[in-house]
């Protein structure tokens, strides 16, 4: 992968090629940061004893993020290929607001056909067991016709024990976002999230990631593995600064809050920028803070006890198509795993905002890819204390 990157970077790429390869470069950043990715080849799940697709019950149950199953912004195009194949079948969506709540729900026994967790939780999901049997099973990549076109480094991050447990589909950033008409940051920094000049107009994500962000702001050596003393300091810092916050957002309500003027500044994902800019016609700035943005990648997992094995593969195939990738980038500002997406058709403003024409956009220290937090329970407990304090 690194050789491929060097080859790409040593060539004089046209802007078209540069953008085209941006998602591959992003994948390299993900790979570099993903400690748990393995070097083993892709494994195939068994398909021999399964009933044919015609005998499957259908009505696929998908456990996905808010914004990926409610079709509020036309996201149904992401699974259009699936609907083309099974036009008479409805998909049953259950949406979640963050990785912890989705993981807890599945750990507590809820089952679906397909789920969409994020990379820093992949290992936890693979480790889940149900009476001794694994909760997930690997995908049979030969059933996903788009798989050869997917970013190899991203897909490698979805491999465990030599098998493809996750079809990595999307990636993106997290950074401060603000209304340019209302806010004048003193500097490009995460500190905007606790700028007292805008007290009452700021929203934080309801997630322990706020502790990580505070860690980056304070120059903690490794915000994903903070010591007890560092965590205590970050907790107290956030409790102290919480007074400037109006509410903690959990889903797409943050987009509405920007639109109504309830909020001027927020911890945000690219989708909030695209929704605010394109749908709500707001003058939003997605910041590149001096401490670095954080970034993430997510992928589809297949449940072990699914009766919709082939349906699930068809769904993953639809999601990873170039058409889905095009839509995802253009409408949510999220990167996509399909490398055949024609990125030149994107709005130049979008490309500039997310630096898609910059091959180093996902490199440290400019961007920090989310990593597994070994002591997530401690982080979580402290974040709950921040909220309740």
């Amino acid at each position: 992968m690194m050789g491929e990157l060097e080859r790409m970077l040593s060539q004089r790429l046209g802007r078209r090629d540069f953008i085209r390869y941006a998602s591959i470069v992003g994948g390299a950043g993900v790979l570099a940061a993903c400690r748990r990715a393995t070097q083993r080849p892709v494994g195939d799940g068994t398909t021999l004893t399964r009933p044919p697709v015609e005998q499957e019950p259908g009505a696929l149950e998908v456990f996905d993020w808010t914004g990926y199953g409610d079709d509020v912004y036309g996201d149904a195009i992401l699974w259009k290929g699936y609907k083309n194949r099974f036009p008479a079948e409805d998909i049953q969506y259950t949406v979640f607001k963050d990785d912890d709540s989705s993981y807890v729900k599945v750990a507590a026994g809820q089952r679906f056909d397909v789920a969409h967790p994020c990379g820093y939780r992949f290992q936890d999901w693979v480790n889940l067991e149900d009476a001794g049997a694994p909760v997930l099973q690997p995908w049979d990549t030969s059933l996903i016709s788009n798989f050869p076109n997917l970013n190899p480094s991203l897909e490698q991050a979805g491999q465990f024990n030599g098998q493809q447990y996750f079809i990595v589909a999307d990636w993106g950033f997290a950074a401060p976002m603000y209304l340019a008409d209302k806010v004048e940051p003193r500097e490009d920094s995460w500190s905007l999230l606790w700028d007292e000049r805008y007290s009452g107009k700021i929203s934080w994500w309801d997630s322990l990631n706020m502790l990580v962000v505070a860690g980056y702001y304070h120059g903690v050596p490794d915000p994903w593995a903070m010591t007890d003393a560092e965590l205590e300091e970050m907790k107290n810092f956030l409790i102290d600064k919480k007074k400037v916050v109006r509410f903690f957002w959990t889903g797409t309500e943050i987009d509405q809050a920007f639109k109504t003027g309830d909020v001027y500044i927020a911890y945000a994902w690219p989708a909030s920028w695209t929704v605010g800019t394109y749908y709500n016609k707001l003058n939003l700035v997605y910041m590149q803070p001096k401490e670095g943005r954080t970034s993430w990648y997510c992928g589809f997992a297949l449940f072990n006890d699914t009766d919709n094995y082939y349906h699930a593969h068809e769904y993953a195939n639809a999601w990873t198509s170039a058409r889905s990738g095009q839509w995802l980038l253009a409408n949510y500002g999220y990167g996509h795993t399909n490398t055949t997406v024609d990125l030149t058709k994107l709005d130049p403003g979008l490309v500039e905002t997310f630096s898609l024409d910059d091959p180093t956009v996902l490199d440290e220290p400019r961007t920090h890819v989310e990593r597994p937090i070994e002591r997530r329970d401690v982080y979580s407990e402290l974040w709950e204390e921040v909220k309740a304090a």
Partner: protein
Amino acid sequence: MTTETAARTEAPRVRSWPTTLGLLSGPLLWLAFFFLLPVVIVGAYSVGGLSLFPTDAGLSLFDWRRFLTGESIYMGLFWKSVRMSLTVSVVVVILAYPIGYFLALGTKRRKYVLLLVIIAPFLTSYLLRVLAWKVILGDAGLVNSFMFWSGVRSPDDPISWLIYSRFTVMLVLAYVWIPFVALPIFVTLENLDRSLLEAASDLGASRWRTFWRVTLPLSLSGVLAAFVFVFIPTIGEFVTPLLVGGIRGYMYGNAISDLFTQGLDWQTGSVLSLFLLTVVAILTALFGRFLQVRKVVTD
């Protein structure tokens, strides 16, 4: 009364035990499986007898001790919720009493039509009713827009405490509960012996004096019931604070919800839940005594 009717009236009411057991088994099984068993499970989680993850610590009273001794922040949050619920309950009862009074004593015709109108909001989604307040109270909402239009406030300076505050939570909770609370007050006043009011009037008492000395004392059981109906559920309320409370409206119920769904800490969540359940049980027992439930049942 005919002989036949009298005989029917005097027929023994004692049923055979299989019949009694058969009639009771359904509700008892329901209670056992859907109330007692879950409570036992939550209790087991609270002391580590059960755990979500195999790596969680075993049996321990650590979380109970931290909570009850005030080492954790949740006891403070509990008292904050109690204060908010008390405020809401008192305000709601005060506002609902005139409604119940008007329906029971102020109207003779169409009182049940009016009652239906009052409880009509219950026919719509709870979520919808709460979210509607966002439209009314937001920075660009109905109230602030009127302020801007009338020149009372500048568009750059909306009244920000209208939304995402404790005030908002209490306002919305009051709105949600008023129709429900008016019902027990209405029923009490409806069953009031009108001859007592006439007697007070005949004896020269003013309407105000009649209200204070006769109507209000005789309707106190309804008032108390109304208070309980609001106070107990709102202590554990979490939907309204989640939607319109912001960081200042965060309540005890939100902490329980978050600990179970987000915090990966079912043990602490179970401690908080059981404590709330215990408090509610005690309150119910206390208020039940004042409400003379047994008398109502035997009547």
